[in-house]
Every structure is written in structure tokens, then in C-alpha cells.
């Protein structure tokens, strides 16, 4: 290898290594924030329905804290290299999507749209080639949401909130119908989608239990 060639390769590698380190620092930062959010969100399983909005309002500012990280990432990532580095933060980003979707659902009982997630995380449209929220990360986040809601269906009943499983069941069915429209390849998204049926089954069992025992408010007029 001639000297010049060797040196230029070494420079390129040095540059990439340094960039990787810087990105890694940001990902650690993002992880810290999402971990706090997830910790707070864990309380939904033991919070009475009336106190949930307050809990959600406390979660939101921490979630907005992710904006600082995405802004730095947008600075760090060279143009057009989004896909080169995104694997480094995909997992953290999916957790953030999950948190945003859970907050939206518990506050408004609806599915958060992808653009709204980007907004919450401070990901600007102009940064597309450096940092963006690709559909697959959003979809992974939604699957996390279903996993969590199946737990909530069980725990809500324990707390005496018998209507929650019904609401969750309706929402998750709609979401499942959405996922069924995708032509999924044999990748992780596909495998995780396949596992959704177990969550659905769990939720259905809870719905079955509370309906059969006439515990829900919906079943009262029927008596």
C-alpha cells in the first residue's frame, strides 16, 4: 500500500471512529431519558384512572427532553448518512415512540400519528437525511405499546377499573387491522407482529372474564 493511500484510509477510519464515539455519547443520553420515562410510565399499572392525566403530564416534559439529543444528532450526522448510523439509536428511539404513544392513548384514547411523534422528539422535517423517524421504528414502538396495554388490561381489573380492558381491546383490534395491511418481510418487525396475537389473546381473556361476570359499566343496562 502506498503511503498516501494508507494515510488517507487511516484518516477516514479515525474520522469515523471519532464520530461513532460522539454519537454513542448522545445515544447514552437518550437512553437515560427514555429509561426515566419508562420508569414513570410503569406507574400506570398502579395508578387510579383519575390520577392518570397528572402522571401523563409529568411524563411529557421528560419526553420533550429528548429534543436536545435529536438536535445534537442532527448536527453530528453528515448529510445523507442517516441510515449509516441509525442502528446505534434505533432501540432508544423505539422506546421513545412507545412512551409517546402510550401517553397519547391514555390521555386521548387514540393512536398517535407518526408526525406527532417526530414533533414530540424534536425531529424536524428538514433533517430527513440526517435524522428522521422511519416507519419501521414507529411500528416497533406501537408493538411495544400493545405489549404494555395487554399488561394494563390485567392490572386495571385488579385495581377495579373494569372498563379499561374493553377500551384497550377495541383500540388494539383497530391497530392490529392496520398491521395486517402491511406486506411484512421475514424480519424482526414481522416476528414481533406475529407475537401480537398473544397480547390480543390475553386482552380478550380479560374482556371475557369481566363481561361474563357483568363487571363492566356497559353491561349494567343489560341487566
Amino acid at each position, binding site marked *: *500500500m*502506498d503511503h*498516501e*493511500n*494508507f494515510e*488517507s*484510509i*487511516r484518516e*477516514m*477510519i479515525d474520522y*469515523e*471512529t471519532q464520530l461513532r464515539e460522539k454519537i454513542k455519547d448522545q445515544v447514552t443520553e437518550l437512553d437515560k431519558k427514555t429509561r426515566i420515562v419508562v420508569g414513570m410510565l410503569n406507574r400506570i399499572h398502579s395508578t387510579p384512572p383519575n390520577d392518570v392525566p397528572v402522571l401523563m403530564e409529568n411524563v411529557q416534559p421528560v419526553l420533550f427532553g429528548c429534543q436536545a439529543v435529536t438536535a445534537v444528532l442532527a448536527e453530528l450526522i453528515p448529510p*445523507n*448518512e*442517516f*441510515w*449509516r448510523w441509525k442502528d446505534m439509536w434505533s432501540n432508544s428511539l423505539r422506546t421513545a415512540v412507545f412512551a409517546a404513544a402510550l401517553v397519547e392513548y391514555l390521555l386521548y384514547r*387514540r*393512536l398517535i*400519528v*407518526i408526525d406527532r411523534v417526530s414533533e414530540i422528539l424534536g425531529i424536524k422535517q428538514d433533517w*430527513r*437525511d440526517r435524522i428522521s423517524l422511519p*416507519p*419501521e421504528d414507529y*411500528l416497533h414502538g406501537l408493538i411495544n405499546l400493545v405489549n404494555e396495554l395487554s399488561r394494563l388490561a390485567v392490572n386495571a381489573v385488579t385495581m377495579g377499573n373494569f372498563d379499561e380492558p374493553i377500551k384497550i381491546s*377495541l*383500540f388494539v383490534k*383497530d*391497530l392490529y*387491522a*392496520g*398491521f395486517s*395491511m*402491511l*406486506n*411484512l*418481510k421475514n424480519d424482526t418487525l414481522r416476528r414481533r407482529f406475529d407475537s401480537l396475537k398473544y397480547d390480543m389473546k390475553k386482552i380478550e381473556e380479560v374482556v371475557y372474564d369481566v363481561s361474563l361476570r357483568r363487571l363492566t359499566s356497559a353491561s349494567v343496562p343489560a341487566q
Partner: protein
Amino acid sequence: MSLSSSLSKDSILQAFDHFREELDDYNDRRERLIKASRDVTNISKKTIFLMFRIIGESDSHDPSVAKVAAQRGREKLREVQDMYAKMRSELEGDRYWRHQRQVSPGLQEYIEALSFAHFLEYGSLITFRQVQDTLSEPTNGKPHFPLSVSDYLLGVSDLMGELMRHAISGISKRGGRTKASEICAFVRNCKADFESFTPFIHDLRKKQSVTTQSLTKIEDATYAIVVRGSEYDLPQEMLDDIVAQSISTLTDGTFTDEQRQSKRHRSDSE
């Protein structure tokens, strides 16, 4: 409740309709690139065979023969360059990095073939810049896509295996021993240079161990000749007989599993 639910269902389905389009678009492009990469691999392997055939037809290490082989090889590789030019729109902007995993295998084979042609003509390692230049618009020099250091290093690492075949299969020709020791020194230097990059390039360590095996084979072949030559003080023709014997054992019998595996597809396309 039922009204709001059906409304939200509609908006969900609409959103997912859009995701389906995006995912399909991505998957279709992915398939196209995998196919293209396979074609590139195929042409590159044939090019290497072509160059070996041309060299093999001559019974001496005449530089002009090597030059002809290199030129014919480069001509054939233009097919690959044209393919990359056509793929340009598929790899535009941030798409290249999204699909790098589909592009890399073919690209590395191409670099292997190209670097062999380069070596035959100039006796040196093709530089990163030179590889990138072959993958650029000839008119304005704009790259079709950014070449990665990793593809370059992994591609030229594969060259070492070809050089081993070149050194050993040509060792009995006139000038073959000098050629073999030249190649031996060249491979040794490259291996040392690559070594410092191994911590940063995924898979390079694996390639390095294959290179070590190749290097050992060249070393053993040149060693055998020196030892036997000195011991018996034999005339040239008899030395060639002995060498021919060692070639047959080295090229037929001593492929390791790893090398056999990496060479298997090669014999498939023969």
C-alpha cells in the same frame, strides 16, 4: 363510542396504507439491488477467470502478457461500471447507506477483480481513490455512490488469495520464482498494512487469517524451490519438474475448509 372507534379505525387504516407503500417501495428496491449485486459478483468472478486464462496461456512471465490480461479484464469490468451507473438513482442520497448491505457483496467482488487487473499491470495495490474513480461519472467525476473504506479494504483483502494462485500456478514458468518472491513480499506488506485497520473494520480479521494462509502457501512454495535447488545443484529443467510436483500438491491438496468454501462458488461458475 362505536362512532369514534370507527373513525379512529379509518384513520389508522389510512396511515397504515401509507406505511405499506413505503415498506413495499423499500423491499422492492432491496430485491432489485440484491439481484444486481449478484450479477456484479458473477461478472467479476468471470473477469478474474478470464485474466487467469490469458496469463496461463503464456509460458513465461512476460509483462506484456500481464498487461494484455489486465486490459481485457478492465474491458469486461466496464460492464459492472455500467451497471453501477444505471443503479445510480437507486442509490441516490441517503439510499446508498440504507442499502449498503445489499450492495457490498457485489462491490467487494468487483474491487477484487479490479485490483487484480491493476496489480497485473502495475505491480501495486490499487488505491481507494482509483477505485472510487472507476465508480464515478466519467464526464464530471461525480461518484455514483460513496465508496466505503470497509468495502475497499475487504475487496483488496480478497486480492491476496488471487495473488497466491497467481504466484503458485506461475512458479514453474521462466521467471516464475522471482515473480513468486515479488508477490510474496507484496502480500506480506499488504497484510501488515491491513493489520492496523482490523479493530475498526468488521470482518477484516477473518480476511486477514485467510491472507495468512495464502501467504504461507507462497512462502512454502518459494522455500521448497530454494532448498531443493541449493541441495542438489540441479539444472534448470529438473528444477522445474520438482516445482511442478510441489505445485500439484499445493493447489490440489492443501485448501483449508474456509478457503474451499470461499472458492466453491467460483468453481460453480466455471
